[in-house]
């Protein structure tokens, strides 16, 4: 049977089956089991209405429990067993083996790097784009063009960016934009400014920004009578530690930049330069996710009450003060939402690394590490163990989301 026909039949069976199930199960409930007539009509109607929600929920519940809940438990179990021993229980041996592998720690380090850089950069660019396009006439067009990469698959985006990073031998014409640009630099004054001073300035302003965020996080501890919960305090401490790490790292990078000898005039295989190639991969995701951040933040910016902005302008605030001190604090909640949503994407990132480097040259990430273990090494145990690690990394956000959703419903 041809797959297209099979697809059509599946649609018919799937949709028709669902509708039929809902229709007939309701009929059965109302007409046969609890008929709304006879001496117990009222009682029957009540009973039917108690059962009905579960009729409506049943197919979804079956899918969710079989395809999402059960796997969580099963993966946990599999991570404690060994395939070679016919699924025998081996305790934490898989985790031990995994923690002993350098590739795993490389993946962890890279994932952490992704975790900081991609949400931060996407949110920052998204906020910038949202603010820039907010008040101009062609803002809608600009937005939809920046938003466009959201429709492009990670694999398609990987091809697009490989075309940018491609390198040819020095005596041939460069067809990758990045190398063509790179060969323009000859080590003179211009190169010094563009490749040393400019990155240093960007890194320093990044460090300053992170330090400022750290300061905001620190405020309640310094001030008196803060009404924050213990959970909040722990989160703040974690954030502070992250911020401190970022500041130190970026300052160290500034020193590195000035002491580094750059190989001018030689085309570079960008994706094979350890450590930095991670950033070339991250750019792909930042390019895609900026549109998402922009759309959400743009809506939030529109929702800010005009009066607050007007009052600030009347009080003599300049546009930058209006943006950073009036607008940004009011959309902080949305920024956090955008940040966590992108964080979730980052934690599961697989396609980009798989298509561009497949984890070579020290670009491994957890999801690709897991895929490797699963389908190349055929090691279900360690594969499951690494999936559990991803789950653990996701769970703070899971708890936070559920907590917020419940708060909102009340």
């Amino acid at each position, binding site marked *: 049977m041809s797959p297209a026909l099979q697809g059509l039949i599946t649609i018919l069976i799937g949709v028709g089956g669902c509708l039929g199930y809902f229709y007939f199960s309701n009929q059965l409930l109302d007409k046969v089991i609890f008929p709304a007539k006879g001496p117990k009509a009222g009682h029957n109607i009540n009973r039917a209405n108690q059962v009905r929600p579960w009729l409506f929920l049943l197919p979804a519940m079956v899918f969710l429990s079989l395809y999402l809940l059960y796997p969580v438990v099963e993966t946990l179990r599999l991570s404690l067993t060994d395939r070679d021993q016919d699924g025998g229980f081996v305790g934490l041996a898989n985790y031990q083996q995994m923690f002993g592998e350098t590739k795993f720690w490389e993946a962890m380090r890279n994932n952490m790097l992704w975790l900081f850089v991609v949400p931060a950069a996407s949110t920052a660019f998204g906020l910038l*784009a949202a603010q820039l396009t907010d008040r101009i006439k062609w803002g809608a067009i600009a937005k939809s*063009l920046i938003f466009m990469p959201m429709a492009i698959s990670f694999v*398609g985006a990987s*091809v697009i960016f490989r*075309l940018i990073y491609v390198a040819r031998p020095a005596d041939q014409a460069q067809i990758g934009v990045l190398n063509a640009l790179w060969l323009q630099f000859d080590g003179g004054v211009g190169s010094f400014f563009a490749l040393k001073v400019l990155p240093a300035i960007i890194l320093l302003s990044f460090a300053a920004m992170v330090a400022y965020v750290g300061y905001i996080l620190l405020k309640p501890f310094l001030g008196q009578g803060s009404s924050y919960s213990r959970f909040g305090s722990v989160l703040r401490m974690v954030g502070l530690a992250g911020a401190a790490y970022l500041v130190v790292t970026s300052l160290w990078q500034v020193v590195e930049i000035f002491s580094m000898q750059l190989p001018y005039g030689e085309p570079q295989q960008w994706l094979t330069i350890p450590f930095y190639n991670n950033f070339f991969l991250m750019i792909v995701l930042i390019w895609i996710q900026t549109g998402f951040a922009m759309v959400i933040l743009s809506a939030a910016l529109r929702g800010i009450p*005009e009066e607050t902005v007007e009052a600030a302008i009347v009080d003599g605030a300049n546009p930058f003060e209006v943006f950073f001190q009036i607008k940004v604090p009011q959309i902080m909640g949305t920024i956090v939402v955008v940040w966590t949503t992108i964080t979730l994407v980052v934690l599961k990132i697989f396609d980009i690394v*798989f298509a561009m480097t497949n984890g070579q040259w020290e670009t491994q990430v957890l999801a690709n590490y897991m895929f490797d273990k*699963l389908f190349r090494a055929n090691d279900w145990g360690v594969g499951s163990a690494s999936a559990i690690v991803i789950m653990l990394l996701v769970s703070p956000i899971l708890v936070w989301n559920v907590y917020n959703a419940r708060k909102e419903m009340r």
Partner: protein
Amino acid sequence: MDNIAGTKSSLTWAVHLATLALVLLWLFPTLGLFISSFRTVDQINTSGWWASMSASEQSEVLRADSPDENRVADGDMYIVNGNLFEAGSEKVISTWGTSSRDISAYQAGETADMGEGETMTVAENGDYIWRGTEDQISGRGQRVFVTAKAPPEFTLANYEQVLLSGDSTDSMAKAFFNTLTVTIPATIIPIVVAAFAAYALAWMDFPGRALLIAMVVGLLVVPLQLALIPLLRLHLGIGIGKGYLGVWLAHTAFGLPLAIYLLRNYMVGLPRDIIENARVDGATEFQIFTKIILPLSFPALASFAIFQFLWTWNDLLVAKVFLIDASGDTTVMTNQIVELLGTRGGNWEILATAAFVSIAVPLVVFFAMQKYLVRGMLAGSVK
């Protein structure tokens, strides 16, 4: 409002310029792929795509026509006349040479003295006159190294190769239909399943409702990676194996949390009066749902449909795990492209075209239905 404090016009200009720069920066990568997919192999290899509008300079090795068939006598000398390029070529020669050691020894139009009376003249348009004695003008045609400017050239040949050739390594046609086969059922089925559940969660009162909603919110973020091994084992165990049915089921399930969440949030916002009135008038819950709720929820349904379509069309991981078997008959476009990156890593005309074929449909959907996509995103991010 902007002119309350007399905002400087210079800032407005800066905003316009910065926006333009940002838009161009974001458009640039896709544009590169798009333009490259229309260029010929020669053009792609000799210049970057950003130079595709201007003439590119290429060096090539050409040969004069074979003397044995084409030479004509001219006194006691022989002459071969002709043009180095194929008919219809618009290339313009700047320099040329007859030896690989010095490929730009002569300007176009100059006559080269090749020793012992043998001469050759090459004009800008490729016309040449090769003149010498009977011995010299024999054997194979003279090699000529030319440096020529080729005018911009665009072609649809890449698309023909990728879509119509049927070449098993390059062909995207089969993968295109496979992707379509995966996508359509995987988009429609979860909508139906989710809509009923969302209605129950939004408008029916029963114990445990809040808990179920919390569970759906929690499942929204459970990584797919956890589901891979147990589900593959399950599918293999119950005989579904790797194939379309498996990938449809998997996509349906993975799309459900978002579908339920989006639809429930939307349905909760529908006016209570309509539903209460219908209940008073004696409509059954099933009727209320199909006749009132579903039509009113169309925007939310459309939002989710676009999400799910983009996600299943662009997916690689789920297809690789649940669909593609060793035979490779059921390969999808994303997987085909990853394989092309391995086998055709340097053939950018094929790669760019294949990638563009795969992103064209989502782009069309995106631009046509952007409104719903934005709406869905705003509703879907957990507040």
